[in-house]
């Protein structure tokens, strides 16, 4: 099995879908000639031609709007946001068009809007956001956030094959840092299924995206101290895998909800509510959140480091919770 980066796996997934299904096409800013700001689409123009790899003007609203229109006409567009931060410019097309058409009028809207999100690369407040929750709060969308190279490929393929809009949050910190063995054959990772990345007994850490690796690092540290962490990777945020979350909570009785997104209104709050509603009597301690604070992502590297949850912060929270 070849070892590839998260980014290569993602490209391979899109590539395979392009080969498999002629109705799949790409559109976005500088994705053709330049190969994309992060080179996710490098080589696509040469392989699939300008009709299926379309460089667009700098207008997210136009990109999403065109994608919605193409989807209604039977195509399966994959639209790239150069940074997921900029999806806000296409927000109306996403939440009022793409998300509601199937509900309101019946036709399917098989579009994927994908792009890099997340911090850790000193990108500053406009290029580092984890803005997934804007869409998790929008019924009619699916929201996906892969943490591994294997999932990046498997989930993008599942997203492209899905008949309605999927917002696909890649993590730019993982693009080239994460290298894994990824099968070359065709496979999909079904949407809506979480993965237990590490089995444990004392505290369940529920997370997603790059924080999966932070949680695993903390679990590694704490194992030496005799504290056993279970790490659950949500993979899909909407609809999220209630069952796996609740199973882990019931097993461990204590839970830490971890994300890189800011605190208020984050995924952790949603999961905390779920757990309080459905597993209250399984809890042996308070539900603990480890998240970024409620601020924009700082540009200054030391401040950004302070802003982001780290393995040390997770370990400290876990130790305190274990003692409770």
């Amino acid at each position, binding site marked *: 099995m070849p070892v590839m980066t998260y980014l290569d796996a993602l490209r391979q997934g899109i590539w395979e879908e392009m080969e498999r299904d002629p109705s799949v096409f790409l559109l976005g800013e500088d994705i053709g000639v330049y190969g994309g700001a992060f080179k996710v689409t490098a080589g696509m123009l040469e392989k699939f031609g300008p009709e299926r790899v379309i460089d667009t003007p700098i207008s997210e609203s136009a990109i999403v709007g065109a994608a919605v229109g193409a989807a209604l006409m039977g195509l399966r567009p994959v639209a790239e946001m150069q940074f997921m931060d900029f999806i806000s410019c296409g927000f109306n097309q996403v939440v009022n068009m793409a998300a509601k058409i199937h509900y309101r009028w019946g036709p399917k809207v098989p579009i994927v809007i994908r792009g890099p999100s997340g911090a850790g690369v000193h990108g500053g407040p406009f290029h580092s956001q984890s803005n997934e929750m804007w869409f998790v709060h929008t019924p009619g969308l699916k929201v996906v956030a892969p943490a591994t190279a294997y999932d990046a490929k498997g989930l993008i393929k599942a997203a492209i094959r899905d008949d309605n809009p999927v917002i696909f949050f890649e993590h730019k910190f993982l693009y080239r840092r994460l290298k894994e063995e990824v099968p070359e054959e065709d496979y999909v990772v079904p949407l809506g299924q979480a993965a237990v990345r590490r089995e444990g007994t004392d505290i369940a850490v529920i997370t997603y995206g790059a924080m999966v690796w932070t949680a695993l690092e903390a679990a590694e540290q704490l194992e030496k101290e005799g504290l056993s962490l279970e790490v659950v990777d949500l993979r899909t945020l909407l609809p999220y895998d209630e069952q796996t979350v609740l199973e882990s909570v019931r097993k461990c*009785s204590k839970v830490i909800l971890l994300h890189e997104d800011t605190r208020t209104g984050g995924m952790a709050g949603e999961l905390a509510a779920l757990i309080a509603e459905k597993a*209250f*009597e*399984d*809890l*042996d*301690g308070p539900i603990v959140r480890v998240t970024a604070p409620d601020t924009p992502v700082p540009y200054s590297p030391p401040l950004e480091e302070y802003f982001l949850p780290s393995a040390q912060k997770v370990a400290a929270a876990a130790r305190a919770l274990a*003692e*409770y």
Partner: protein
Amino acid sequence: MPTKVIMPQMGESVAEGTVTKWLKKVGARVERDEPLFEISTDKVDAEIPSPASGVLAKILVRENETVAVNTVVAWIDGEAEAEAVGAEGAPATAVEAPPPALPAPALAAQPSAPPPAVHAPAPSHPVMPAPPLAPPAPTVTGKVRSSPLVRRIAREHNVDLARVRGTGLGGRISKKDILAYLAHPAAAVPAAAPPPQPGARMVFSAPTEVVPMTPMRRQIAEHMMASKHTSAHVSTVFEVEMTRIVEIIARRGEEFERRHGLKLTYTPFFVRAAIEAIKEFPILNSSVEGTNIVYKRDVNIGIAVALETGLIVPVVKRAGEKNFPGIARTVRDLADRARTKHLSVDDVQGGTFTITNPGVFGGLFGTPIINQPQVAILGVGAIEKRPVVRHDAIAIRPMVYLVLTFDHRIIDGAVADQFMSRIKAVLENWEEAVL
């Protein structure tokens, strides 16, 4: 030097005790061995003497609070400190927490965790300076800190959380703690009462008052239900004429009292009669172990004694070897000590047959429950004059109903009735010298 007063261990299997009454107030002088407080445990109620002379400096465990054995319940200041306490006076009284206005049951109704203050002076401070008198740490009763999960587990296993030691933050009971407790429920701590039958819980719309059972009450409840689940209870009733016994008491009572210093009562007659009958039918003095019948060589007769707070059954040990006055004296001694809470654990163990006396309050007869692991219990009704037929004429005779409840697993009706007719014969034709 201050002396700890601890909750004593009343017998091997007793893990905790309830302070039922403080006989001294904080600040009061107490002599060594002078009764200091009363306790109630699973096995006995007792008066606990002071371990030292001095001044009762601090009470750590309030009335109606239940704590583990060896818990420090109070401090007594020795002679030297006594004056210091006297000088400060006021704060000491403040230590005695229970507000008199609060009815005791209301306090006891809250699950009471031993306050941290009670644990603190444990073994790590063998020589503790005078206990801090000035700022009286309020003894915190009430909340047992746990978690939703722990409360659920406790509910499912019917665990009283007050019995579980918490090792979490601030003594919180964690999942680990309650699982450990369930794995090894202190051999000592008796299993809580059997879980309530679903649907058996009644909902009262009228105002109610919730009063927790005393340890003794809990124990009785458990024993009674366990017995009903264990034995095949059958009762047989005999009517016995007491003319002969009444005559003996009338004729010999005074002499007996002069010689032995105690009143001649009916009870020793019934005990003697039961022993005679047991000698002929030893299966009444046995117990069931699996598929075996275990015959007891000693005849140890338990005598049920009603107390204000419950019931206790002290045992006349090796009653078969005692003569009549010996039995009379032992019965009297046990009854006295039961009522004054001076029974030892040994006094209430080892019974092989029990006599209970529902007649004391006028009952004609009752159908008692067997005191496990025994197999029979004799109930003595009220002795009263009744019209009976003698030689085809109606006569007035002192009569009594005797009831034998026996375990039909091993005793058949025929044996039980022969046993009873033997008792009847002994009583109606009493021959033994009582003096």
